[in-house]
């Protein structure tokens, strides 16, 4: 007998033009002591399903049919019953620990409030219980930290507090919606470990909603794959990851960058035919291709950057050393990866290389010229043209008020003001086709495109000036894994055919492994180690690199 049974559940949203089914006729069961992973890409309905179980669907959405049976009782039969179950029998963990705690109450107050709402305990008893819980989720000095406010905890600690809140009334079902997505990899593994132990110790039924196949393979017992509101496939984790039956699951799994080997290209199921030869790089004819030499294209020497805030405070106070004495070099045609957790200074380095920030000290040489000392704008323009950047967030990196044509035309006309309209249109069309977008895209606005397509527009814009160095700052971390695979393939093709030099910045080790020839590992603004990719993954030298590699969720771990 299963503990939770979802029976034919559907959720629809009545929009202005049509009714959209976010969740369509879902059936599955969860047993006690089991972690069910719910995976899918954005828009697949996985979070909506999680919310539908506890009847927490916002207007204009509503549960159109189906039932949720918890421990033999249909919990949707009476709407007021669910209020007693939320927090008591069903615990919830949300994605962002920054916003799921009230910043004006101490964590103790929040725990006691929840405990007293559901259990008949007096203040002293609830307090003891709260402290026990905090200890259980691994918070040291729990009795002292009881009176702390959420901002006094780090992200990972805060997520532990959220878990203790979810557990405080002995729930039997735990719904965790992307519980580790906002966290760094080292903290992620701790939180996942905690959820696993708690599941065993308390005999919980857990639904773990995530987009990360690595997380699934390391924690879930069974996996349900969702797409566009439908349940594509459900089975044991091993079955799904090693022998998926549905085409969608197959393509999803083949898009996940493997952690244990470097592959040439990602397999894209939907477009099998043009997969082998890669894209037709139309701009190749126009490209002033540089021969690959062994020369350094860029070399960074003793780079430092400090940030300080406040006009009125003393200069010595409030100094943050974001980049601390970093030196490395990149050869022409090479792809160099910079990895690190949040706050390691990797984006700051990128911004100094593209000259958005001036370094506090140190030098950057591009093609043997020091670009950090250039004062004249005219002089700088020569280098602006040769160094371009692709950004993380495809939604903020394009001006929504301009048509795609004008976005791509801007760099072209700026560096070649004499170009006539016909040549300009031809060039834009070639650029669009090189990034696999149709020519019709030119007359449309950015908001008409998906995240992946926007990232392609961004790449086309970056290529318009024929740069030699392309700085990619987390270019795929806002994208779904299947889109990520396409974009990474595109970048590989472009690099191969145009002899581009790439500086690839990411927190995602498997992605970096697929993309880079050499990798630098950053921690707190310091460069720990620079090694060839294979060497780093097989024989890491620095302690921190070892730790990172050990902690990264590995989809392959299921084979063992």
């Amino acid at each position: 007998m299963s503990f939770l049974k979802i029976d034919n559940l559907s959720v629809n949203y009545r929009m202005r033009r049509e009714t959209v089914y976010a969740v369509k006729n879902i059936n599955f069961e969860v047993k006690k002591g089991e972690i069910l992973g719910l995976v899918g890409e954005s828009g697949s309905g996985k979070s909506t399903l999680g919310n539908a179980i506890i009847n927490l669907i916002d207007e204009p959405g509503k549960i159109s049919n189906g039932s949720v049976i918890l421990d033999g009782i249909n919990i949707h039969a009476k709407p007021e019953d669910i209020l007693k179950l939320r927090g008591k029998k069903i615990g919830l963990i949300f994605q962002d620990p920054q916003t799921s705690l009230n910043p004006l109450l101490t964590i103790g107050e929040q725990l006691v409030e929840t405990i007293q709402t559901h259990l008949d305990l007096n203040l002293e008893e609830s307090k003891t219980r709260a402290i026990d819980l905090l200890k259980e989720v691994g918070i040291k000095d729990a009795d002292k930290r009881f009176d702390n406010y959420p901002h006094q905890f780090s992200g990972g600690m805060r997520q532990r507090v959220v878990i203790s809140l979810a557990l405080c009334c002995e729930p039997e079902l735990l719904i965790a919606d992307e519980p580790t997505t906002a966290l760094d990899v080292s903290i992620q593994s701790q939180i996942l470990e905690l959820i696993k132990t708690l599941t065993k110790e308390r005999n919980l039924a857990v639904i773990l909603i995530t987009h990360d196949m690595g997380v699934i393979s390391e924690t879930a017992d069974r996996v349900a794959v969702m797409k566009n509101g439908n349940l594509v496939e459900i089975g044991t984790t091993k079955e799904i990851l090693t022998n998926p039956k549905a085409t969608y699951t197959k393509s999803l799994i083949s898009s996940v960058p493997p952690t244990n080997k470097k592959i040439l290209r990602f397999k894209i199921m939907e477009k099998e035919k043009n997969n082998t030869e890669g894209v037709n790089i139309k701009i190749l004819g126009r490209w002033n291709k540089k021969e690959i030499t062994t020369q350094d294209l860029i070399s960074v020497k003793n780079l430092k950057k400090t940030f300080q805030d406040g006009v009125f405070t003393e200069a010595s106070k409030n100094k943050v050393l974001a980049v601390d004495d970093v030196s490395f070099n990149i050869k022409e045609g090479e792809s160099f990866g910079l990895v690190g957790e949040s706050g390691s200074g990797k984006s700051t380095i990128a911004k100094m290389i593209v000259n958005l920030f001036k370094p506090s000290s140190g030098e950057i040489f591009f093609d043997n010229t020091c670009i950090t000392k250039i004062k004249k704008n005219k002089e700088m323009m020569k280098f602006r043209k040769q160094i371009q950047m692709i950004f993380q967030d495809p939604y903020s990196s394009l001006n929504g008020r301009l048509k795609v044509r004008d976005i791509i035309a801007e760099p072209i006309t700026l560096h070649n003001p004499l170009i006539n309209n016909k040549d300009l249109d031809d060039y834009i069309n070639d650029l669009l086709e090189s990034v696999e977008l149709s020519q019709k895209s030119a007359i449309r606005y950015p908001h008409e495109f998906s995240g992946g397509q926007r990232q392609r527009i961004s790449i086309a814009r970056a290529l318009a000036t024929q740069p030699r160095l392309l700085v990619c700052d987390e270019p795929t971390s806002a994208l779904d894994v299947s889109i990520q695979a396409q974009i990474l393939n595109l970048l590989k093709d472009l690099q191969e055919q145009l002899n581009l030099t790439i500086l690839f910045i990411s927190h995602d080790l498997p992605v970096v492994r697929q993309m880079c020839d050499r990798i630098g590992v950053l921690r707190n603004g310091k460069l720990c180690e620079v090694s060839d990719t294979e060497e780093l993954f097989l024989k890491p030298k620095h302690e921190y690199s070892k730790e990172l590699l050990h902690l990264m969720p590995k989809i392959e771990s299921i084979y063992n």
Partner: protein
Amino acid sequence: MDSQNLSLIDRIRDSDVYFSFIKSPTAIISTVILMIIFFCSFFVELVAPFNPFDPSSLDLMEAFTPPSWEEEGMSKFLLGTDGQGRDMLSTILYGSRISLIVGFSAILFSLILGVALGLTAGYFGGKYEMIIMRITDVQLTVPSILMALLVDGIARGLISRELHDEMAIYVLIFAIGISEWPQFARVSRAATLVEKNKDYISASTIIGVSNIKIMFKHILPNILRPILVIGTIGLALAIIAESTLSFLGVGVPPTTPSLGTLIRIGNDFLFSGEWWITFFPAIFLVILAFSINLLGDWMRDTLNPKLN
């Protein structure tokens, strides 16, 4: 050309703004009222039954005629006449034209000044920003009507008496404009601070686009929404400020009366029973300002990305 126009109309029909507009009765009603007022004011020569500024059409015998539905009313003067025998309805329509011209020009002046300063302050930052923003802070401590009075007073001192009536309307536009710009400066600075940290600005910088071009081609179109909203509400404020100044006697001269001037003139007759001379211009002003404000509120709700 034709198909392009069609697609523009289709795009408007398809937009969320249009959808929210046809769903909001207040927005529709206030727009209709404003359209009627704008139309009547700008084609006043065609619409108004009389020309109150043509001395030959005035007859002092017809002065102080009450509205037509009163016992002594005359059917040709719907809203009665004032002390010089001018038809109230026509005078109001002519007056509202002056009020609207002053209001629009003043708000355009303060919008251009405020957005230019706010945009550059937000974009360049540093000491320049601090100076601009402190000036706005200081000016915001002075009530805007006092500010306008001050400007008007200085202008009176500087401009010779003969020129004064001619220049009065420009002085008024300048006075109201200069007293409203800090609002625009603040809003556009705040919006610029948000926009300039977005990646598309970084992308343009990396390409090598000049600061001026980034500000006007990239940032300005993206901060227009909030500016449009406060511009609309500011228009109502500017019209009221114009009326207040004219009521106080420092606005437009009585030879070309605005709504405020009419209210002031009528105010003298209020206690002798000729209530219509002040009441109708006043109620007209209320309807005008109220409609603009309702439209502004609707715009604020619709164009606010946070509420969508």
